[in-house]
């Protein structure tokens, strides 16, 4: 039973990480590329880390919950690094994909 849960979580996490990286390749401009790694990859990491917790607690039977620390750390830091990246992109006046609405909302700094 625990094995099925671990397998499911691992596959879920792996596919989300893959989807995040596919988004990094497929999207046409920087601002759209940012969406994949900040969201999909974070959830993928959470899946793999929870799988690791379940594996060590129920199959190996050495209860361990410290993987939660990495999950919390990534959840806190992913938006911050995304914010820094988009701020530097705006500072360098990167071109956004044609058809992006509301570009005049960006103010010069």
């Amino acid at each position, binding site marked *: 039973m625990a*094995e*099925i849960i*671990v*397998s499911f979580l*691992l*596959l879920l*996490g*792996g*596919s989300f*990480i*893959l989807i*995040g*990286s*596919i988004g*990094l*390749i497929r999207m046409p401009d*920087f601002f759209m*590329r*940012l969406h994949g*790694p900040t969201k999909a*990859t*974070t959830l*993928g*990491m959470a899946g*793999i*880390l929870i*799988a*690791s917790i379940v*594996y*060590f607690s129920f199959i*190996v039977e*050495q209860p*361990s919950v*410290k*993987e939660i*620390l*990495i999950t919390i*750390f*990534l959840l806190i*830091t*992913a938006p*911050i*690094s995304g914010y*820094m*990246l988009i*701020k*530097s*992109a705006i*500072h*360098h006046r*990167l071109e956004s994909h044609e058809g992006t609405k509301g570009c005049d909302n960006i103010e010069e700094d």
Partner: protein
Amino acid sequence: MLDTVILIVFSMIGLSLLLNLWRLLIGPTVPDRILALDTMYINSIALIILFGIKMVSSLYFEAALLIAMLGFVSTVAVCKFLLRGDIIE
């Protein structure tokens, strides 16, 4: 069953690392490359945790935590450098 799944997930993460490397190489701008590097950091954490599961050892956890911290700090430092041309003002 778990061994097969771990192999599949290993190849998935390896593939996404290759995709990130591709984005790191083609750019086209500096923030794109930093984003690719940041994603590579996070994917390598996943790889290390997965390796820990395969080796049935929780020793790799500390390495993963260190990479998570260094990756975040280095991304922020490089972005700060792009923004201001200086890291500590």
